[in-house]
């Protein structure tokens, strides 16, 4: 059996982490293809619904990338994101979605190398952790007959 390749959904702030991903690209820094990036205007724009939907649809991990405290383009969207992540983590934990699957990281626009490190690290951690309990594709038996919802 081929190695488990986790699926990570990334919600990246346009002003920092997304630009960092761009920088990583132009600097020819490669990072795992496991992450699927969705560009947001701010980490504070990431509605808890988006994260819940990603996990329900079988994402093995969710990574939110925002600006360092004090650097938010919208003054404090990232701080709101942090409180929301703390709240949502508690809900997800109640239903067996490990907090190790749900990351918030500050990655500035200039930190292309850090972006690569974070994605590398998260991919490795998720490989260790194995598929999410809601990942219907990677179960040994293809028994699940339905979408969660």
């Amino acid at each position: 059996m081929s190695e488990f390749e986790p699926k990570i959904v990334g919600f990246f702030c346009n002003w920092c982490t997304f630009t960092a991903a761009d920088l990583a690209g132009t600097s020819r820094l490669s990072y795992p293809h496991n992450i699927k990036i969705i560009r947001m205007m701010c980490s504070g724009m990431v509605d808890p619904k988006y994260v819940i939907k990603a996990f329900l649809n079988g994402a093995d991990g969710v990574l939110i990338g925002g600006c360092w405290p004090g650097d938010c383009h919208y003054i404090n969207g990232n701080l709101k994101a942090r409180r929301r992540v703390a709240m949502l983590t508690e809900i997800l934990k109640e239903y067996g979605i490990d907090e190790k699957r749900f990351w918030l990281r500050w990655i500035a626009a200039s930190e292309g190398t850090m972006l690569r490190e974070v994605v590398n690290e998260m991919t490795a951690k998720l490989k260790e952790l194995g598929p999410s309990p809601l990942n219907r594709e990677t179960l040994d038996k293809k028994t699940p007959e339905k979408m969660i919802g």
Partner: protein
Amino acid sequence: MANFTKLSFKKGELNQKLADLFKGMMEKGVVDALLAPMIQPKRGVMLTLVTDPSHVGAIDPFAPVVPVNGARIASSITAKPSGRKTAMVLRSCEIRALVELCKLKQANLDDVLLIGMDCLGRYENLDFVKLRSDGQSSESFLEKALAGNTENSGCDVSGACKICEFPVVDNVDLRLCIIGTGADALYIESLTPKGDKTLEAAGLGIGEAPAGREAAVQQLVKKRKDDCDTAFAQYRESTPSVDALEDRLANCINCYNCRVACPVCYCKECVFVTDTFRHNGDQYMGWADTFGTLKMPTDTIFYHLTRMSHMSLFCVGCGQCTSACPNSIDLMPMFRAVAQKTQARFDYQAGRSHDEKQPLTVFENDELVEVTGQVK
């Protein structure tokens, strides 16, 4: 500080005594209006807004039923204030929810004299109607419930009430005390200057706390807390995963009654009834294609988890969600167990204080460092 007034009553005359009290308050102009549970002309007991003192006679605040959480009612009366002084007689869960609605600017207590009452639980609406038609009165309920027995003709108070740690309510001007006050006596406790003035204006003297009340309250709270811990442990054991949650919610038909009944589900329009969730036909077909089958209606678990992310920080455990479910899904432990975790994360307790800011409305630069684990 003891600010108690004793109101003795003869058997069968509790409501009469209370009616006299509130009638007097209205006639003396202490308040212009009264919102309290009252016996309805046809049947049942509902919160009723009274502006004419001659109608106060139907009052029955200790009737063990809460058809809707009164925080919602108080919100509709006060969100756009009338300017008229209103006394509101509500239960602990209603007042705690009301505190949260005030913080959300969906209610306003400026013109309100808030009167809380000791609560020994409520029956489901239909059970209550049945018990009433069997001739059960509020007093007969109180007598049994105070002795520790809430079961009556095969009906018991709601599951939420059995594990409610707040039989006595805070954040009120006056408290109608019935726990540990001895038979045939109700005590009115004043907790604020507004309450003191009211008692004075109503011509009621101020005396000592009833002996034995504190111990009786503590004993009841301890029992409820223990039962609550047991209930949460059972719930968590039975529902540790999303799969188990699907089992629990298998009969959910997306009617959204639980959020209509919820006093703290604060959105004016729920996103789940907007166009965001009115998907195109090819969207449904696409989902169905993934596994060859798709349960309809969709988005059931999604809805409940999203609701948790909205209301769990404010959940007061009133149990109206369970009561409202047409398919008898016991939702209360689900929302309460999550609420316990989210509220604990921010050291917050819904309804505890007007001064505590709701956790998602405040934020600091240097907090919750453990979320990212990064320090610059």
